């Protein structure tokens, strides 16, 4: 139960949620100023999901992510400065300026990649789990995807394959209600992912994705199961993205009341409340924590702005090995 968690540990998880929020807000600010090229998809409002899941992962466990991947990648331990360097398209960025926001990868901490193709990461996570199983490893793979991915062929084929071979994958659907403008309920007759899980013959759970503790508990069960060779689990985390599909999207397809009702359920507020109740974080502590995180992200963004521009000819490097 939620009461079981160590407040000092939860404080660190809270720090991570604050870091994601600050990163996304800063990136949005820079993007709106015209400093960042390309597209930017914000995960503000969804912070409890990546943090609650990766809390149970070790450094050498793996994740796959999506076009809305900053949160997953930060939660897995990526360096925000190198992420900003990539958002700026610089030489020292994670992808040497070739990938940008939608493609950040850090294999050294098990981030197999954000992905510009909806559903594209699902079979990749399955394959990663396959190679872990072949090697007799107890590592696991967390596969993050949106509600939109649930309707793709790649999702169905991938989950089924993981199910039949008992692969160590945690399929985490971040159901933020919309795929671009399309409400999930209009494109999926299954009430929730537990219905689909049944169809594949694996366990499934629906959790409140704005409640860090609910995510933590469900993810712990799923990770333990995968580690002991029990096979995959489908988790549906119900949450909401505060911004439009991309920064700049006026999001005319949803109402202000709807946005306000979800903002009232800010995942950060719940954790802060939990910590305050236990005397682990008073107002002053909270302010200090926020200031620390803000300073860290400001420094990371400044480092991004100072990055080296890539040499044009480097565009031809890494097409093939060697």
């Amino acid at each position, binding site marked *: 139960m939620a009461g079981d968690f160590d407040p000092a540990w939860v404080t660190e998880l809270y720090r991570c949620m604050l870091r994601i929020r600050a990163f996304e807000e800063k990136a949005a600010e820079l993007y709106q100023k015209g400093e960042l090229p390309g597209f930017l998809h914000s995960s503000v409002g969804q912070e409890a999901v990546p943090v609650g899941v990766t809390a149970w992962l070790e450094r050498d466990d793996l994740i796959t992510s999506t076009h809305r991947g900053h949160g997953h990648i930060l939660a897995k331990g990526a360096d925000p400065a190198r992420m900003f360097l990539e958002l700026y398209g610089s030489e020292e960025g994670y992808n040497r300026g070739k990938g940008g926001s939608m493609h950040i990868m850090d294999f050294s901490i098990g981030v197999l990649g954000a992905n510009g193709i909806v559903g594209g990461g699902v079979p990749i996570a399955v394959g990663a789990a396959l190679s872990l199983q072949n090697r007799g490893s107890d590592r696991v793979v967390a596969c993050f995807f949106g509600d939109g991915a649930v309707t793709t*062929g790649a999702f169905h084929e991938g989950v089924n394959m993981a199910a039949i071979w008992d692969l160590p994958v945690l399929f985490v659907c971040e159901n933020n209600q919309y795929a671009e403008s399309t409400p999930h309920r209009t494109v999926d007759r299954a009430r929730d992912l537990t219905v689909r899980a049944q169809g594949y013959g694996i366990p499934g759970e629906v959790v409140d994705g704005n409640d860090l503790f609910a995510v933590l508990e469900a993810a712990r069960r799923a990770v333990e199961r995968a580690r002991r060779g029990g096979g995959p689990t489908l988790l549906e985390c119900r949450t909401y993205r505060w911004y439009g599909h991309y920064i700049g999207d006026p999001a005319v397809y949803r109402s202000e009341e709807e946005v306000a009702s979800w903002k009232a359920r800010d995942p950060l507020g719940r954790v802060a409340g939990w910590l305050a109740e236990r005397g682990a974080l008073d107002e002053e502590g909270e302010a200090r924590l926020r200031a620390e995180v803000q300073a860290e992200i400001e420094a990371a963004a400044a480092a991004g702005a100072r990055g080296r521009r890539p040499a044009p000819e480097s565009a031809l490097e890494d097409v093939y090995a060697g």
Partner: protein
Amino acid sequence: MREALREALAEEMERDPSVFLLGEDIEDPMGGSYKVTLGLSTRFGRLRVRNAPISEAAIVGAGVGAAVTGSRPVVEVMYMDFLEIAMDQLVSQAAKIRYMSGGQVAVPLTVRCQGGPGRAAGPQHSQLLEAWFAHVPGLKVVVPSTPRDGKALLKAAIRDPDPVLFFEPNILYNSRGPVPDPEADEVAPLGKADVKRPGRDVTVVTYGAMVAMALEAAERLAREDGVAAEVIDLRTVSPWDRETVLASFRKTRALVVAHQAVRQGGMGAEIAATVYEEALDEVDVEIARVGARFAPTPFAPELERYVVPGAEEIVAAARETLERAGRLGAAVGR
């Protein structure tokens, strides 16, 4: 361009009740990720403008099924890159059904996509794949370069009895230009190129977003070198208009084929080789290809610019062909 395409869709839906639209996020209020279908679901209803889940293989496949049973579906796939997911339905189903049924049935399917480089969209959202599809007998591939052509070609694509891939260059959506009235019902023939600028010294064959760059290059060549470049807009990449290209080449005896797609294995190779085969009897055959360097489209703007060619490269290639032919300089064409 965006409005011209929307008009083509609306006019065809008005004219033919069997025309319907299917795709992701195409209904109002979104009206498509790039707003081409804005207003159409409100006007024609949600049976004829149908929002689909993210299911490219099923969307295109459903288009094939609808097409062989008396409908004229116009499917929107958000980015050309995502056609990869629907490849079987396009290549092994749509393109083959008429042929392998012994001509029993037509597949009047139109697949609209947008795409191309120029917006730092990165390696998975910037590809130009027209050459892949030009390699497949049974598919037609159309790429418009102006609002007028966009409207007239999209109408032709919808009326065409075969599967047509209609590739909209993203960077042209905001481009402006004259568009014929609904009453004019202008339909451009598929498979017919358009000479966008006549000239007698060098032929520049191109299509899509590169047409504007070729015209800019022609302007510079005229000003700086006194060279009169003829700019041919293929408009239909497959089947492409050999007659117009060969006739122009016979006049100018120098050819530059230019596209933003990767040069290796691209349309430039096909056109250059065809011209070479057909024009072996000409005195001096001078051909140059312009295309993207052999790399995915990178994210950082300066990398993207380095990989993808523009007007500059067309000018250089035209000069090179004429130089090799000994025709660059004071004596040019005069």
